[in-house]
């Protein structure tokens, strides 16, 4: 008896339908990008991840040329880790939930895969999203507790408050909202010859520091400003929001909320951030 748990892949018949895939590849930072065409056999319930897995295993293009596997980033494959963001058929999304059947309904001739355009390409579909994480640091997206010793429970939270905060807290830093934002411009810092990792990282951080935060970190600032203990650093977060690259850079295009795979009410957060920032600026003005 064979175990049907984790069934092995059903054998693909030789005459199976093929899917065409066009991938925008790039061998490394600063290198030219180029299109490459692949073909894989259609299987039921495929997603873009399984397409890329098949491409890696066969390692040759539709023309039969041997090529290295396409590099891409993925993790949980169930849309909670935020790794596998890319631009698929022109729309930014998670490749794990991009189901082939649905993509073929959009365009029956081929599936087009491109890396996000607002982040520097590392290789092929992999991009460097460290700016996003730096943004979380800029807005101090954490609860400033005294210690990790046992001090009893946290402050009581109403169900209403939890229901407001939980959606914001589901942000998985995937970057879709930033890719879709007209005000969020790519910043690419090229490594200088002889530069150490630490020096390069320092220059990158400095470049990120002045640039637009984007929807995801702004929404996190609002999340922590509405937490009973998080509030204690509210002014520092608002300082970041009124600084260069803060809330005033938002052009209110509302693309962010439209592409968020978790349907986080980003524009509501931005609205709240805008109002709080205005009050904060006035306070700063008159306090001095």
């Amino acid at each position: 008896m064979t175990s049907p748990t984790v069934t092995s892949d059903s054998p693909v018949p030789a005459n199976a339908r093929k899917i065409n895939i066009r991938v925008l590849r790039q061998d490394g930072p600063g290198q030219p990008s180029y299109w490459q065409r692949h073909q894989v056999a259609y299987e039921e319930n495929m997603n873009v991840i399984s397409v890329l897995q098949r491409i890696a295993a066969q390692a040759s293009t539709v023309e039969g040329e041997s090529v290295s596997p396409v590099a891409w980033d993925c993790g949980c494959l169930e849309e909670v880790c935020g790794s596998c963001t890319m631009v698929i058929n022109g729309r930014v999304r998670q490749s794990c939930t991009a189901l082939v059947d649905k993509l073929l309904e959009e365009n029956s001739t081929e599936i087009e895969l491109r890396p996000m355009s607002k982040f520097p390409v590392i290789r092929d579909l992999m991009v460097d999203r460290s700016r996003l994480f730096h943004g979380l640091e800029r807005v101090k997206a954490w609860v400033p507790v005294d210690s990790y010793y046992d001090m009893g429970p946290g402050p009581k939270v109403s169900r209403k408050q939890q229901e407001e905060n939980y959606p914001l807290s589901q942000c998985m830093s995937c970057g879709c909202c930033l890719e879709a934002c007209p005000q969020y411009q790519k910043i690419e810092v090229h490594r200088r010859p002889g530069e150490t990792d630490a020096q390069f990282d320092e220059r990158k951080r400095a470049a990120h520091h002045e640039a637009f935060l984007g929807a995801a970190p702004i929404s996190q600032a609002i999340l922590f400003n509405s937490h009973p203990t998080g509030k204690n650093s509210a002014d520092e977060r608002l300082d970041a929001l009124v600084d260069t690259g803060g809330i005033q850079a938002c052009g209110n295009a509302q693309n962010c909320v439209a592409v968020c795979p978790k349907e986080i009410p980003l524009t509501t957060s931005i609205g709240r951030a805008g109002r709080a920032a205005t009050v904060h600026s006035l306070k700063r003005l008159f306090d001095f």
Partner: protein
Amino acid sequence: MAMQRVVVVGGGLAGLAATMKLCELGIGVDLISLTPVKRSHSVCAQGGINSCNDQTRQLGDSEWKHFDDTVYGGDFLQHQPPVKEMTAWAPKVIDLMDRLGVTFNRTQEGFIDRRRFGGTLFKRTAFAGATTGQQLLYALDEQVRRWESEGLVKKFEFWDFLGPIQDSNGRCVGAVAQDMVSMQIRSFPAAAVVVATGGGGLIYGRSTMSVFCNGAAASRCLQAGAKYANAEFIQVHPTAIPGADKLRLMSESARGEGGRVWVPTKPQDSRPARDIPESDRYYFLEKRYPEYGNLVPRDIATREIFDICVNEGLSVEKDRMCVYLDLTHISRSELDRKLGGILEIYEKFQGVDPREVPMKIFPAVHYSMGGLWVNYAKSSDAGLLPGAPENQATNIPGLYAIGECDYQYHGANRLGANSLLSCIFSGLFVAPCIKNYAESLPAGVQNQPASVFQQAVMMQESRHAALLSNKGGENPYLLHQQLGDIMTRAATVVRRNDQLDDAYGKVDELHSRVQACSLTDSGSWTNQNVLFTKALQDMFPIAKAILKGARLRDECRGAHFKPEFSMPSLKEEESAARRQEAEKWCDRFEANNRRFLKSSIATFKGNDPEISYEDVDTGSIRPRPRLYGLVGAEVIEQVWNERVSHAEPGEAAGSHSVAPS
């Protein structure tokens, strides 16, 4: 001299908890991870985290009962002191996570809401929607980012841990790792190294685990001389959504919130599920386990679903094994509030709304109960001695293991919502132990000659170079598929010795072939091909330890099920005969425990694991038969209780002196 930094490998719940606590103690951390730590596999944990709480306490619950449920659910294969300590800490762990801002669901009055999970009758489980692991991880990620901004943590994300670095006495004095972007290999000198790299689901091809859960880090420690314990205990989760790339978890919380598992009584009934009347439905878990119902421990639920499909032929579909998991009797608003995250996953991948139509699910490989062997220091009250350097220490001095990748907390079967607890607990608890270890080191240890580190780097560089130039012709991706198929067939729900022998032979053959992979990418920039191949090669020592451990364990315990050695239900009808049969049953149970109530310990030499056995500390709670759903359970229990009351402490069952023959 100033204390050296500590290397933490892995940024899931355990690694991040350890990192932030080390920082609080003033110790700098180099945090190495295959992925940005916020994307670690802990995000996939859905259901919740257990602790005794104010409400359950008033219904008779206690830390002790949580401890008891955990060891009973684990079939008594855990050393009890660490479990006792963990369950005693559980309420404090949840309080801390609450303070850190985790968005736990709330009751109307604003308290943390709780749900029921498998293997207990109490509502112990705190939860944040159905993405509790994600929410807990984010809270820890935020704290670590805070320390990073203060300069105490340096993250090395997209770095692959290649192994511990040992001095001439075998002590771990650092780690060697590779930048997955630039492919640079470098050493990280450290006072201690903590491995927190989770499970190895990729050894089974597809599982509920994330793509980076390949077990390679643990294997690299095993190959460096660390012991690996209870490898054969792999949890197969009862409810997952089958997929071509991965088997997606459908959380136990679906059943915790009232989800019911059933199949049509008529095989492959073609009517839509909702049109099948109650009288034509078989709620087999509720029927077979009236007390726990749909919330029996996972190993049991998995075997029953497997049995109903394979042996009884009642799978919902003919070509694809599955059963119904039904939530349609619960209101939409309640489902959205408590289970939204997982229902969205089902809807997105299956294109069907599980609020309207019962889900189709089947078991999938989910969790490694086994892992790196770690030590502990027992306190006078049979818990752990806080701050003792032995806690969570592997047999390589200076090398620690925590979280899913240690073997310590779940025995033969893990209870749902206990993993998040064990990860956070072991992470927090290990930090002062490491501090004390590091402070006790003689000055000489922290002052290693540079050659120790250079050699480790050179060794890895030559492995890397050899792989790039190898022209053996094997395709690593295809070998991985084959490995996954073999492991899945032989070493999941039902295990048979002939199949395990056969599987070992095949895996051994693949193990030699995997040394001859030809890479399609021989470049030196973000070469995922070579990184994958290295991880694949390192899956084999663990795969072999699983198979060999399973082959040698001729019994049924928790997730390890060999029908040939199962303990049968009672058959006698007449009461005296039944009583006699129960006596024999208990004799056999005791004899089996004398032989097999042991942790298996794998060490790796040459090409194969060697297995030895270690006694289990069952000093607090005497092992007793696990009788969920067995016919005649009440008679066996009666006989057993009589024996126990007559026996001297430590005498009956699970006394631990005889090694398996």
